[in-house]
């Protein structure tokens, strides 16, 4: 689940562009009057949220996992900016900001009257120390790299923060939306918190649940509920059962289509489909033979019936995308026809590439669903073109050390959750080692683009090249499904980058 711990290394920002807004829709699945219609709600009601992603600790710079973003982003901690559920980047704790003409100096003016849960006022010193927490030597934050572009941070007065960059970065506000503003006196926050958000942490019982109650002195609008409790499950079936028996009101992500049948035909539940950014892919190690040869990669891509795979895993849900870019990114183009399913051509291409008798490779497969099933499917499909796949099951932790860090693998399976993460293909040092100078140039120049259009144009171009190169084998896009009891409404549907804003959730009696 490592990629789920947020590996977006500098996803470029499209400020002000409502990229997702139009695509976000309550799906036709929703049977009952979409819960948004609920008129009366109980402002004191506690909302119980079922989740599979318990945080490992409460500090997002100490390898806490995606669960901490789900529970704390926007709820307990806030950033200078916020990535809304519609995909917009909006100011949060920033009142206004200016960018110098060369794009190298950002001057942020902070909001007035923001206090931490401990009662202290938020000042520019807190902002500076918060950014430095992420970039610090001992920080394990995966955001660290994206912020290395920051040269210096000045605090001329309590309300003003001046950030100087070493190169222009159109994604700075986006990247700052991941930086929690933490009280600089808070000390160790791995088991406690001191943020500015609408909720304060009430209690966390490891292995079980995490409860939050509204913060009385919150600077913004108060939540429409009386608190939130995240209940953690180790297994999807247990989570579904909890929803069925009313122990939880919402589950943040559904893992299989088969569980859904219990909810879709039942007026007591609302099933909503949001815009997904989670991609299942087989990543080759593009550094090593035979996968350093684009023709071999393209050949394998043609040998796999992805439609059948998607059907096997997700039934009637999910989408095929033909590349790494989901339809919600501005630089999406339909690339399903590039290296489409055509097993006949595979053998010829392999022969041309110098593998007339096929070859064999080891597929490092994370031990959790759906990867082992996907691996067996690929093994079977590729056997038909004389490519022998050895499945090696590994834990998430081994994936980290062996693949992500040591790059010691032939090919692996992984799901990548973040939106706008095409930029990984511009980094030759990334685990899959895709190195095309043209793509690297396009992606790095798009970061210093002057306008959205320019950025979109460059990344669309990069997207097409990557697909032609078959840099990885993109299998499918997961559906994003949220299920709730029908008396609950106002929850986020897209769960972008694992966030789950709870303050607008309303629960009727």
């Amino acid at each position, binding site marked *: 689940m490592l990629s789920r711990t947020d590996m977006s290394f500098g996803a470029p920002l499209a400020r002000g562009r409502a990229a997702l807004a139009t695509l976000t829709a309550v799906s036709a699945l929703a049977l009952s009057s979409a819960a948004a219609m609920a008129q009366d709600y109980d402002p004191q009601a506690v909302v119980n949220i079922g989740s599979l992603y318990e945080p490992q600790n409460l500090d997002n710079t100490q390898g806490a996992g995606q669960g901490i973003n789900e529970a704390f982003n926007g709820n307990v901690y806030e950033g200078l900016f916020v990535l809304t559920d519609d995909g917009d980047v909006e100011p949060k704790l920033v009142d206004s900001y200016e960018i110098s003409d060369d794009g190298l100096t950002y001057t942020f003016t902070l909001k007035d009257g923001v206090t931490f849960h401990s009662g202290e006022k938020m000042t520019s010193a807190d902002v500076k120390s918060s950014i430095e927490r992420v970039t610090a030597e001992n920080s394990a934050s995966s955001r660290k790299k994206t912020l290395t572009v920051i040269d210096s941070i000045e605090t001329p007065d309590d309300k003003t923060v001046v950030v100087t960059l070493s190169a222009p970065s159109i994604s700075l506000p986006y990247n700052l939306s991941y930086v929690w503003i933490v009280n600089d006196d808070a000390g160790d926050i791995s088991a406690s918190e001191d943020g500015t958000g609408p909720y304060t942490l009430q209690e966390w019982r490891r*292995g079980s649940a995490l*409860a939050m109650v509204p913060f009385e002195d919150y600077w913004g609008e108060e939540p429409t509920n009386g608190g939130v409790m995240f209940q953690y499950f180790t297994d999807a079936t247990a989570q579904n059962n*909890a929803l069925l028996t009313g122990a939880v009101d919402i589950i943040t992500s559904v893992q299989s289509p088969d569980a859904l049948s219990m909810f879709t035909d039942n007026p007591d539940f609302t099933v909503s489909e949001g815009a997904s950014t989670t991609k299942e892919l087989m990543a080759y190690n593009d550094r090593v033979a035979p996968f350093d040869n684009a023709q071999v990669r393209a050949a394998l891509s043609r040998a796999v019936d992805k439609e059948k795979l998607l059907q096997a895993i997700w039934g009637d849900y999910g989408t095929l995308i033909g590349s790494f870019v989901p339809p919600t990114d501005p630089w999406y183009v339909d690339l399903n026809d590039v290296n489409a399913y055509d097993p006949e051509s595979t053998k010829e291409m392999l022969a041309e590439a110098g593998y007339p008798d096929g070859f064999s490779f080891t597929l490092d497969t994370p031990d959790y669903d759906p990867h082992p099933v996907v691996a067996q499917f690929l093994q079977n499909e590729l056997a038909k073109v004389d490519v022998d796949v050895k499945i090696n099951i590994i834990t998430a932790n081994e994936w980290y050390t062996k693949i992500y860090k040591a790059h010691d693998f032939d090919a692996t399976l992984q799901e990548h959750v973040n939106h706008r993460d095409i930029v990984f293909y511009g980094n030759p040092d990334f685990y899959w080692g895709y190195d095309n100078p043209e793509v690297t140039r396009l992606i790095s120049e798009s970061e210093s683009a002057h306008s959205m259009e320019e950025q979109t144009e460059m990344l669309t171009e990069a997207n097409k090249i990557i697909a032609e190169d078959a840099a990885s084998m993109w299998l499918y896009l997961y559906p994003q499904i949220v299920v709730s009891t029908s008396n609950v409404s106002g929850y986020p549907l897209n769960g972008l980058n694992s966030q789950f804003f709870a303050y607008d959730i309303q629960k009727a009696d």
Partner: protein
Amino acid sequence: MLRYILRRLVILLLSLFIAAVVLFVLLRLLPGDPANALVGVGATPEQIAAAQAQLGSDQPLGVQFLSYLGDLARFDLGNSFVSRSSVLDEISRRLSVTLPLTLAAFVLALVIAIPLGILAAVKADRWYGLLLSVVSQVGIAVPVFWLGILLVYEFSLNLRLLPSGGFPLRGYADPGRAIESMVLPVLTIAIVMSASLMRYVRAATLEVLGSDFLRTARALGESHTGALMRHGLRNAAVPVVSVLGIELSTTFLGAVVVEQVFSLPGMGSMLLLGIQQRDYPNIQGVLIVSTLLVLLTGFLADILQRVLDPRLRKEAR
């Protein structure tokens, strides 16, 4: 008897020492440097070196072993790599779930298994004696997680009587819900456990029923039941007590599975999570504490056995 207890106590301490050694060796056999797990993604070689220094994993093995023993003697189990919190604190929180779960299941299993096992042996010729042994067979053959899922399906999803899983946030401060959430897990373990215990009780009772001294007693005019009660049970108890310690430790493996099925925050789920995350301090802590508990149980079972079986007592001098 006192001498025996003292001797047994020395053995207990020695056992703990050996267990500590075995654990130390085992955990170092596992692949992957714990320092990597500590610093996380994107760490530089310098950071990894710093982490190694912090963990002491750059020291020679002998030094590592001594400091490990020192920590154990002070009952300092260190801090988790992942959560950074004290392993001992975490274990004591988790034990408050696992210990009641295991003990309640164990007691319930004994309450079910002893009378039914004796009945199944004494009335082996009757239809209900036969039925009982069939039931115990069935119980043994059901996978724990299967039974758990079945109970959830019936009592939570169908009848809506009990929660399907989870543990209340405030734990026993919320006694009603805490007990409610323990009922199905306890039942699951107890049913599986009583089935295998029942077989031991039945086998041991049958053994005694066929033994010479019981026949002698009956020849001397004692009634069947009377003879069994007066002489048999004590003898039958000896082999049964000897398996109790083992049963309790297999319950721990059962608890790992059951805690997974019911999403309970116990030692089992802590161990499993530790294994998945290569969180060595957590794995080590759970194993040390559970080993300690099981060794203690074995110690008590041995003493009990000694009390029950005068032949062994004599031999021990």
